[in-house]
């Protein structure tokens, strides 16, 4: 298992992570090692096995009634945001 520099950059792009040149050697070295390590799973006999969906047998996602359960606290929540104006989160212009 090996990854080229472009492979690493492609994974970083999919993960929305900016990678600095200083970080490249560490990632190029460790990611293939991890992927090689997990490849030992391919030896396991799993032909008739269903992938595990939940740690507990017979559990399914609960449903709840579609009613309002939260009160408006947007001002409080937005105190943690870097850029807010008129109760709106600001991001760089998306449409020219």
């Amino acid at each position, binding site marked *: 298992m090996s990854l080229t520099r472009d492979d690493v950059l492609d994974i970083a792009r*999919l993960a929305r992570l*900016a990678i600095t040149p200083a970080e490249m050697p560490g990632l190029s070295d460790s990611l293939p090692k991890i*992927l090689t390590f*997990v490849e030992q799973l391919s030896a*396991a006999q799993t032909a008739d096995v269903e992938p595990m969906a939940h740690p*507990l047998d017979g*559990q399914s996602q*609960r449903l709840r009634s579609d009613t309002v359960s939260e009160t408006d606290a947007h001002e409080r929540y937005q105190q943690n945001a870097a850029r807010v104006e008129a109760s709106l989160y600001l991001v*760089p212009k998306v449409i020219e």
Partner: protein
Amino acid sequence: MHTLTLAGISAGIKARRFSSVEVTQHFLGRIERLNPALNAFITVTADQALAQAAAADQVVAAGKGGPLTGVPIAHKDIFCTDGVLTTCASKMLSNFVSPYDATVVRKLKEAGVVMLGKTNMDEFAMGSSNETSWYGPVKNPWDLSRVPGGSSGGSAAAVAARIAPAATGTDTGGSIRQPAALTALTGIKPTYGRVSRYGMIAYASSLDQGGVLTLNAEDAALLLGAMSGFDERDSTSVDLAVPDYTATLNQPLKGIKVGILKEFFGKGLEATTESLVRDALEVYERLGATLVEVSLPNLPLSVPTYYVVAPAECSSNLSRFDGVRFGYSCAEPKDLLDLYTRSRGEGFGAEVKRRIMTGTYVLSAGYYDAYYIKAQKVRQLISDDFKRAFAQVDLLVGPTAPTTAFELGAKVDDPITMYLNDIYTIGANLAGLPAMSIPCGFVEGLPVGLQLIGPHFAEAKLLNAAHQYQQQTEWHRRIPAGYA
């Protein structure tokens, strides 16, 4: 006062030998004096703690309150705490003041528990040595040149150093049990779904579970009971009554069947650790247990299974950190993509990035079946192995960690070696089983942990077995030099 257990502190407050304010002040004083060398706390909430303690004293004065009223503890900094900095030991959340309480925090507040502060941890709980924290590594009070284990390393160091009488933790692959083992504490991770994950910052949602690090099994029973139970705000929370874990601690173990996990005694286990674990098995035999060797043939695949499933879930969970709504946001973003990628690139540390990228890769088109689906199938095989074992035995027993605490920096450059620290603990997470670690001896002054694993919802039996062992042994009473 600081060597008392939670139960001891509770009894002292109830008998008016001391007040909650006095106990809280005592621990805050110890934190101020001893924490700088340990780095166990990220935030100390002294004012809030003293206000909570004063309120608890009023409740006690009115003849009210329960067994945890006025008792101080620390919370791992992965639990959201209303109005208090909640960092997950990441630069990404270094400015995050939580607007609400995690269910665990709320329940303990309602039980009258006083919060001393928030403990250090591996960044986003990704690590086994507490060296990935943006706030710097935590030191092991048994030897300050060694790691306390991770990811709940701050909680472990704080309790072991008696600067907090107990602490919460979380365990995704061993993050309560391994640090408990490396610091001579009692640590329990309950069954998946037993403790609410609401407000517990997510790493790998199908594996994460909250629990406690305490001085003994009795305290673990007390604290775990108060934080367990159904929560409609966690969709995987299980609606099942919580038994009084303290009520069954004294049940005799006569006739109990204990499985010795064959796969846990192979190569990689230090001989000195193995010998102490075997001594502990003899204690169980004297207590009336029957020992049976049990084999779980797929268990050796638990670490590679985990390092597909956990990074996959982490890459999805951590996509919420985008520099927009909360957390670190980069300066002067050029455009939206630049805002996302630079906020994440600058806000996350190396190990977190490595796991996000591993997860992104195993979930990407063309690799999903070969890695992720394959791992979920092997996870099923491991879970089935445990099921077969529990048809024969009541509990499984083995070591918690392959070695005692290692030197700071010894494994940071080699992720695979670091990942193998959790070789004995990950299986329980993959199968959603309750598991705990209790002290079973020392090698050259460093603690060794014994791991007990039970079937789903067997917390009471685990705590009973741990308590009975602790009635026969003194290991859990030892205090590191300089902290007595």
